[in-house]
């Protein structure tokens, strides 16, 4: 095996077999599982048990209200408010709901009263409000003798379906949303991986320098090989981790329904649609789901995966080589090195901010086009834009620039690294580092 191969192998194996890596790789999807279980659990969660509420309908507006999981409604007809209050005290019922007369049909707001010493949970009060509002609506419709069917035909749901003029793509109303989601996830993974693994390379270079193993290593291998081996080894660890996460997350997502049987549709509908507001037709909903899946399938996943990997590698090589150079220039003191780390961090953070703030508003603005070309930004910005079908030449140019820059930055970092790694006891600033570039081998 070549020396570079030996170095890559060691860098990869020592990291992959570390407990922290194994734990991090396994725990992240497990964390996702817990998170999803909590979310699902929350949607099913009822605050407290079922309340029994006596209904004191002073104007006789309401018909019998069907019980639900949250509240059981009993009629309080024939009893006075005080009698009902006594029943609450005797714990026969949990509370009394008094509905005063409406007064005028023009009235858009109506206050009803709830008597109890226990506070009403917000979720329950929302459910009750929805139910009562629905019943009052029914009451108004009946009283005004409006035809219910013709009333329902008044409601129209409107959605914009964007159609491309030049492209053959049939964009649906989901295209933008899906683009945003895919782009956002990719930009975030890029940002996260570059930061995490770049700094890991930096820390590792610093460790080698401070514990003086480099002195031994340098007499066997070229500094450039050691740096490159570390970058490639750590990058391979990063790809391994992402791959593990993708596989495990997929497995976890499929496991969730086994644990909880999926969110209870009735409960979800109840929570989102209190009362008897018009419900979306279940068939129609299934249709929407199908269209969403079709839209997801329509994305050019092969192209996205290919360019994601190139941009990931490009961005990773650019930044991790810069981090390696900085690490080599740093002494034992991490705090002192912060002034050197900052110039490397700023473009990463800037790229992320541009994506989050400018990209979300308009992925094809001038700023975004520039940022998706500029090699220090493009590894984060371009994958985001990819989901919005940018012109192919822009993607190609950006890829080319990022690959060229990756080579350039690795070369540049190598020049700095070979001097910095063997220099001790000297405070280093950027001016000093720039001089190293011109030292002869």
């Amino acid at each position, binding site marked *: 095996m070549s020396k570079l191969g*030996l170095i890559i192998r060691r860098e990869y194996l020592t990291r992959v077999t570390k407990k922290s890596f194994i734990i991090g790789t396994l725990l992240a999807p497990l964390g996702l599982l817990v998170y999803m279980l909590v979310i699902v659990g929350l949607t099913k969660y009822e605050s407290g048990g079922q309340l029994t509420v006596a209904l004191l309908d002073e104007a006789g507006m309401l018909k019998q209200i069907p019980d639900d999981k949250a509240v059981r409604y009993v009629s309080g007809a024939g009893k006075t408010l005080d009698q009902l209050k006594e029943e609450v005290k005797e714990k026969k019922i949990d509370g009394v709901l008094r509905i005063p007369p409406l007064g005028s049909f023009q009235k858009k707001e109506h206050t009803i009263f709830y008597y109890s010493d226990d506070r009403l949970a917000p979720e329950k009060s929302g459910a009750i409000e929805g139910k009562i509002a629905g019943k009052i609506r029914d009451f108004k419709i009946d009283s005004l003798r409006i035809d219910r069917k013709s009333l329902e035909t008044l409601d129209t749901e409107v959605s914009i379906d964007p159609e491309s003029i030049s492209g053959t793509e049939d964009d649906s109303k989901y295209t933008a949303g899906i683009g945003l989601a895919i782009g956002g996830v990719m930009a975030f993974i890029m940002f996260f991986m570059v930061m995490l693994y770049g700094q890991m390379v930096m820390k590792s270079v610093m460790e080698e320098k401070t514990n003086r193993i480099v002195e*031994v290593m340098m007499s066997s291998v070229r*500094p450039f090989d050691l740096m490159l081996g570390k970058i490639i080894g750590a990058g391979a660890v990063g790809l391994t981790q992402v791959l593990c996460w993708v596989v495990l997350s997929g497995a976890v997502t499929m496991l969730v329904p086994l644990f909880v049987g999926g969110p209870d549709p009735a409960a979800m509908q109840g929570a989102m649609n209190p009362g008897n507001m018009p419900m979306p037709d279940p068939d129609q909903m299934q249709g929407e789901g199908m269209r969403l899946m079709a839209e997801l399938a329509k994305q050019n996943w092969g192209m996205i995966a290919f360019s994601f990997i190139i941009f990931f590698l490009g961005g990773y090589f650019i930044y991790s080589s810069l981090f390696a150079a900085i690490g080599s220039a740093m002494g034992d003191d991490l705090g002192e090195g912060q002034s050197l780390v900052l110039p490397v961090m700023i473009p990463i953070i800037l790229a992320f901010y541009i994506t989050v703030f400018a990209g979300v508003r308009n992925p094809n603005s001038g700023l975004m086009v520039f940022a998706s070309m500029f090699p220090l930004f493009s590894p984060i910005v371009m994958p985001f834009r990819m989901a919005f079908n940018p012109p192919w030449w822009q993607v190609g140019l950006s890829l080319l620039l990022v690959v060229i820059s990756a080579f350039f930055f690795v070369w540049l970092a190598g020049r700095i690294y070979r001097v910095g790694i063997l220099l001790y006891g000297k405070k280093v600033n950027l001016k000093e580092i720039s001089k190293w570039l011109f*030292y002869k081998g």
Partner: protein
Amino acid sequence: MILSIQDVVKSYGNYQAVNHVSFDVPKGSVFGLLGPNGAGKTSLIRMITTITGPDSGAIYLDGEKLNERSPEKIGYMPEERGLYKKMKVGEHLMYLAQLKGLTRQQAQQAIKNWFEKFDIEDWYNKKVEDLSKGMQQKIQFIATVIHQPRLLILDEPFTGLDPINTTLIKDEIRQLNESGISIIFSTHRMEQVEEMCDYIVLINRGRNVLQGDVQSIKNQYKQNLFRVETDGEMPADILSRFQTVDHSKRTATIQLASDSESNDLLRYLLDHQVRVTRFEEILPTFNEIFIRRVEETGEKTEK
């Protein structure tokens, strides 16, 4: 010659670390590379070990100009030396040996031999960080010599070693030398130079200021000083006859004029019926030669 340094120059920015240095290291010798801190020793060693290259001049190892295969013939133990703390001892040695060009099988065999030699067979699966400092030093020594280098470069090899390890490593160095390996030995400790080295070169401020074999340098720097001890009083006129550096009733340190020799002094003493119990030439210690030469060649050490 195992190593030949020819008019080597190296500078970092405006700082000239090595300034036209030349010397040869004879095959099979123990060669002392001496000099105060900041003299350019480390810069020289880094060029010999191909970590850096000279700005001008040339370095030949065993007749061949330094090239990318040269590191495999060199074993270098830096003054500041470390190991990967999280690695297992055996894997660590395997890694370093493979980087020096050994195959896995060769490395395995070499590790086994050295572990047996130092009686540490049970260390293979220990983590480096669990070893004591002295144990780590043994591992570092093994790592330096595991690929059977032709030339061994040891930079202050005994700093931080306890007396037991010092003796152990010293013996190993001697054995390696006897088996034909040439050794460059960089140190500040002059008593070790006298004890171990055949040849030396003294570097100061990037220049070669003294070189040669240890014995002739000592002769070159001797001041014709003799120390005499007698049984009975010294002759009365000894002070007028010889230049006496210091004397008491029964001892005297005498500096002979360059045209006279030791037997003149001895004959004089015998003629005066003095019984000589001790007569020896005082040779300069390397420490003295070192300090004298460094001062002569200009500014004192920077430390």
